[in-house]
């Protein structure tokens, strides 16, 4: 009964979305207040219905209702509760449900907190949101219905892919989707602005917090995904340039560019039409990301089973949304009046450079990701574009970005001098060069690119901190004055410093892990010893252990240094009983400066077990840095100036807490 209610609510939601997609638009065109007001009611109703529908689906998973085909395919009664919950979105149909849920909740948030928006703009934004909603709801109902019944109901389900049964991955999709779908709001604002033919600072004040929030969630989502692949897949790497990873990186790059250009629109009333274009691109890339993951057109470690009907639907949807939006842009963008003038050397100029470089990065990733697809269509040749391509293109371009990142904040709006900014950064430059030379001589004399990247990491951290110190006049004015400046400093500036410096940590961590790790693969019998970097490794023991839905073999590996015990690693091989699948569980010991990482391969007492050990220097900095980067975004989001209609309630609370 409850699944039928959920199904029914979903169909109703589609009907409501159709109303929301048309009537408020007509109302805004005719200036009819009542029709425009309908948008708000419809958005709230639609959100209510989809929440109801999602709750019904969740209920089916929690109570293991095996009369639903999707629950049978993806769940099992013996699964821990967390994975019963994450099982709701750990598959194709459910993840689409999660997508529309977030979309509808964001739509409701715009409706609820957008009271001080002009009526027409609000009606149009809600209308555009509903167009996207109609597309996704139709997709779910016609090609991926999660509420289909199975008769007769089997006694138990097939269980969930053991690799996905992990706390990191339980929260990875919701965070990623909060980011993807968050860009739908900026997209809706962009389209509404094109229809109205007007972009002003008030518009930017609305768009910037939404972009920032979406960006923060996307950053966290990507971070969690990368961390998951690091400790689950057992390859010791953190980023594989896999098409699906690229699919989430592209909207992130476009979103980062959007974040910065929205500042120019807000502060200087310039770059308007470019910002609108970026808003369209960021969401288009989010949709493309969904398409790449869901349709299985690309070989990927992530690809779920493919279904051509779904692929065609998303492709058509993609063409309509992206093609339509770009056509509208081409038609209407020339009507957007551009405002403030500026010199090339200025804050605006630096932000344009930032946008150029970020978009170029995004374009290289896009090309590398889609090239195999195009070549296959054109010539039938099967190729793949792997890490070497991205390392030779992405890395040098990002160096240019890193170099500019510390200088930009020192430049004033409108016109500025480059030289004084560089002089103030001299300490950072000197230390970065020393770091680079040390890395190139002491650590590894072969990896020049790594040494260069290491220097840029140092530069980013010190350069950002110097800018912060400069802003509070540290050391140049009495301490009381510095404290006063610190207290009155806008949160957005603090957020910027945190995020920029955090990126430096990400760079340092990535470089050190990728270039200077130490690896050992060999077979060990119990009691056998080997040398590994500075340590002596012993396989002390291998014993059977029992988990909630798996049996496992657990190895105990002891690392000693000068006869003293340094660390104990306990990697496992888990045999999931329902799926009859073995999954290796890595064991990681970290002291925040290095990760000791072990995976256990197959083996037995006679032949010994294959064991893979890694010493990954600075590895934790990658994810801690990325999380700090997102934190900087949240700090910036808490800035009072970013709140629309400041004395009223903050719209930050509108972010749902999934």
């Amino acid at each position, binding site marked *: 009964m409850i699944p039928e209610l959920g199904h029914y609510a979903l169909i109703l939601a589609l009907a409501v979305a159709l109303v929301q997609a048309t009537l408020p638009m007509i109302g805004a065109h005719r200036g009819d207040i009542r029709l425009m007001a309908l948008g708000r009611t419809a958005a709230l109703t639609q959100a209510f219905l989809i929440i109801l529908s999602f709750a019904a689906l969740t209920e089916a998973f929690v109570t293991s209702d095996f009369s639903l085909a999707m629950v049978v395919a993806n769940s099992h009664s013996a699964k821990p509760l967390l994975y019963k919950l994450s099982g709701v979105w750990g598959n194709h149909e459910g993840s689409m449900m999660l997508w529309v849920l977030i979309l509808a909740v964001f739509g409701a948030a715009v409706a609820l907190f957008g009271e001080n928006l002009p009526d027409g703009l609000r009606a149009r934004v809600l209308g555009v949101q509903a167009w996207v909603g109609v597309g996704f709801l139709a997709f779910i109902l016609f090609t991926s219905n999660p509420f289909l019944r199975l008769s007769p109901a089997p006694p138990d389900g097939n269980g969930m892919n053991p690799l996905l049964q992990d706390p990191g991955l339980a929260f990875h999709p919701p965070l990623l989707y909060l980011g993807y779908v968050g860009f739908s709001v900026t997209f809706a604002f962009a389209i509404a602005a094109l229809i109205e033919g007007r972009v002003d600072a008030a518009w930017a004040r609305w768009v910037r917090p939404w972009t920032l929030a979406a960006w923060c969630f996307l950053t966290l989502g990507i971070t969690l995904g990368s961390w998951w692949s690091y400790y689950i897949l057992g390859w010791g790497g953190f980023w594989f340039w896999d098409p699906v990873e690229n699919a989430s990186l592209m909207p992130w790059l476009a979103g980062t560019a959007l974040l910065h250009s929205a500042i120019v629109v807000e502060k200087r009333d310039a770059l308007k039409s470019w910002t609108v274009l970026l808003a369209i691109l960021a969401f288009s890339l989010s949709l493309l990301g969904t398409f790449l993951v869901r349709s299985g057109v690309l070989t990927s470690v992530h690809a779920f089973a493919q279904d051509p009907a779904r692929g065609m639907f998303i492709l058509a949807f993609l063409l309509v949304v992206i093609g339509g939006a770009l056509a509208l842009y081409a038609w209407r963008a020339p009507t957007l009046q551009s405002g403030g003038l500026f010199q090339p050397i200025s804050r605006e100029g630096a932000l344009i450079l930032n946008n150029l470089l970020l978009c170029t990065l995004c374009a290289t990733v896009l090309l590398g990701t889609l090239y195999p697809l195009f070549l296959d269509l054109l010539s039938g040749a099967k190729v793949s574009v792997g890490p070497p*391509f991205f390392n030779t*293109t992405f890395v040098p371009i990002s160096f240019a970005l890193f170099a500019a990142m510390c200088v930009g904040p020192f430049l004033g709006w409108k016109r500025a001098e480059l030289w004084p900014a560089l002089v103030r950064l001299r300490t950072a430059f000197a230390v970065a060069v020393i770091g680079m030379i040390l890395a190139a001589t002491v650590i590894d004399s072969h990896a020049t690119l790594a040494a260069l990247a290491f220097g840029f990491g140092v530069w980013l951290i010190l350069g950002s901190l110097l800018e912060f110190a400069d802003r509070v006049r540290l050391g140049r004015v009495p301490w009381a004055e510095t404290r006063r400046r610190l207290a009155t400093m806008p949160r957005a500036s603090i957020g910027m410093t945190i995020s920029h410096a955090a990126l430096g940590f990400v760079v340092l961590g990535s470089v050190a892990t990728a270039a200077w790790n130490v690896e050992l*693969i060999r077979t060990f019998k119990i009691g056998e010893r080997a040398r590994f970097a500075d340590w002596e490794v012993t396989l002390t023991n291998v014993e059977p252990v029992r988990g909630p839905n798996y049996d496992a073999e657990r190895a105990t590996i002891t690392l000693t240094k000068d006869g003293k015990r340094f660390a104990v690693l306990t990697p496992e091989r888990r045999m999931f009983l329902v799926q009859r699948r073995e999954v290796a569980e890595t064991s990681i010991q970290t002291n925040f400066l290095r990760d000791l990482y072990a995976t256990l391969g197959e083996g037995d007492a006679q032949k010994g077990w294959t064991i893979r050990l890694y010493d990954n220097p600075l590895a934790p900095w990658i994810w801690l840095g990325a999380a700090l980067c997102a934190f900087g975004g949240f700090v910036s989001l808490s800035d009072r100036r970013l709140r629309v209609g400041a004395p009223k309630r903050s719209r930050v609370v509108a972010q749902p807490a999934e």
Partner: protein
Amino acid sequence: MTPKRKRLWLLVGSLGVLGVAAALVLSALSDNIVFFYSPSQLAEKHVAADRRFRLGGLVENGSVQKHGTEVRFRVTDLKQSVEVVYRGILPDLFREGQGVIAEGSLDRDGVFTAREVLAKHDEKYMPPEVAKALKESGRWQEGEGTTK
């Protein structure tokens, strides 16, 4: 600065960045594209030793041999097969009779040395390249189960 000059500057800057990026991309693409071959295609073409490529097909039944950390197995498209050598821990889903993609290069004796054996999330999943190669070899139909 007039808006016209500003636009010119912007254009020059953008073209500069895009030009450098395009040059980087093109040189990287020509060096770093990894082709995919099935064992039959490999038998027809003569791929230079040390040229990196991807080999895909099924892991031949009964061909997996392990010596310590070294694994030898044959990849087949049911017409031709190629011997593969890999040092390291195989992905959890590696099994005889299952689809596999290995990236590496041929050595002088025609043995494929894999630097990477790709893992899949899902045991029902057949890499599209492998499915296509198998269909082309004419000995396998879509949806047909492989031996467990």
